């Protein structure tokens, strides 16, 4: 369970780094502000669904964290960690759509639908990137995949899959260039009408998802806990922090992608590219 707690701490650290980069108040002050905000609902809102959506996001992040290994140890002993992570990450689709739908507000609904379109764009390349790493290690177990990279990190000899994974990590946390579902152009999108405490829970879940996505990149592509001198768990932590910092930093450095253009690139460029990558990996591994 320690791994889940560590990822929770990393999520708070990510929020702090983001606040520093944005030149705004830290996460605790913002959390306090949201907590004391009056609960207010729009007319005819489906509050049950909206609240399920808000809670589902941090819950999914925590459940996904169960299979994330630090060093060679994960909280949950399962051989299908990759698929589990994938399934929990898809809960985000439901969460954002529910929150957007439940508000009974046009902009929020548009935000919810934007994330479905985004999901359809990033999910297949994402899955193929996951499978590519699993294929090379002959396992769906994140611990085994991390341990299989003794000589050369997967991120080095399958750069396309690694790049696609990083893109999809941004997309699944609707972060930075993939932030359109919560876009400023539609006044905050899916989260527009969330009452303060619900908003806090929802946004915390988003940071959690970002932390988990960063942590999973380590066993998949960055050699897991492998490294000189330091113990394995510490290497995992250091690498996770590096990936997380990169993702947080990228948030403000890039304009937001609109799915009416990105979907086409995702399907016509990213999917064939990552399929070719998988073919190369398969030929190397099978020989």
């Amino acid at each position, binding site marked *: 369970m320690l791994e889940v707690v560590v990822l929770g701490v990393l999520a708070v650290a990510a929020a702090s780094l983001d606040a520093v980069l944005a030149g705004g108040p830290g996460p605790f002050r913002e959390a306090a502000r949201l907590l004391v905000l009056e609960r207010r609902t729009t007319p*005819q809102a*489906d509050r*049950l*669904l909206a609240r*399920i959506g808000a809670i589902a996001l941090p819950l999914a992040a925590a459940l996904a964290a169960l299979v994330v290994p630090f060093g060679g140890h994960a909280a949950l002993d*399962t*051989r*299908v960690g990759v*698929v*589990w992570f*994938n*399934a929990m990450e*898809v*809960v985000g*689709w*439901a969460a954002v*759509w*529910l929150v957007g*739908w439940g508000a*009974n507000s046009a902009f929020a*609904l548009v935000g919810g*639908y934007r994330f*479905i379109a985004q*999901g*359809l764009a990033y*999910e297949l390349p994402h899955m193929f990137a996951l499978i590519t790493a699993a294929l090379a290690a002959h396992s*769906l177990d994140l611990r085994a995949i991390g341990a299989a990279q003794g000589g050369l990190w997967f991120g080095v000899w399958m750069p396309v899959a690694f790049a696609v994974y990083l893109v999809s990590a941004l997309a699944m946390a609707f972060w930075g260039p993939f932030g359109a579902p919560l876009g400023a152009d539609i006044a905050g999108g899916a989260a527009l009408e969330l009452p303060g405490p619900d908003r806090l829970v929802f946004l915390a879940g988003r940071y959690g998802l970002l932390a988990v996505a960063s942590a999973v990149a380590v066993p998949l592509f960055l050699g897991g806990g492998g490294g000189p001198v330091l113990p394995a768990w510490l290497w995992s932590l250091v690498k996770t922090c590096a990936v997380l910092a990169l993702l947080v930093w990228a948030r403000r450095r890039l304009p937001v992608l609109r799915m*009416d253009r990105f*979907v*086409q690139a995702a*399907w*016509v460029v990213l*999917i064939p590219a990552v399929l070719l990558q998988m073919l190369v990996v398969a030929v190397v591994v099978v020989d």
Partner: protein
Amino acid sequence: MTVLFWVLAVAAVASGAAVFAVGSMARATFALLASFLCVGGELLLAGQHYLGVLVVLMMIMEMLVMAVFMVMYMMDPAGLMPMSMVHNRRGALIVSGAVFAALAAGVFAVPWPARRGGPPRDPAAALGQAIMGPKMLVMMVIGIAILATMIATVVLATRTGRYGEDGAR
């Protein structure tokens, strides 16, 4: 284990029934999703980790896509008016009653085989062997065909579709 099994089983049936009792398309969709998630949980309990997680993964995505279409085609997108999820009540009751009776009869009528051997060490790998081993060619062809169809559909839809670059004005 047994308690968990019954909790999930009852929850699956209850949320399945809720699909027809709730007043909005969105709630009906997510009641159905909850039912499927419980079934996924049962598979996990049965030791089929890969299949169980796969059911969870696929059902969430499918229900979300279904929600898009259901909401698109229904009268009242904002869900402001409660609507009935039940149509053709009598016919549906007869059909569903008959199907239930047939399935229930099957449970008691079929001579269930006794267990031979133990479960494989890695059920996911055994499943893969069973499906992919002798039928590899068929699976490959179908897989590529489905993928090609999806990509072609998207390309067609974005290039000249209603809201694509050319159709926008």
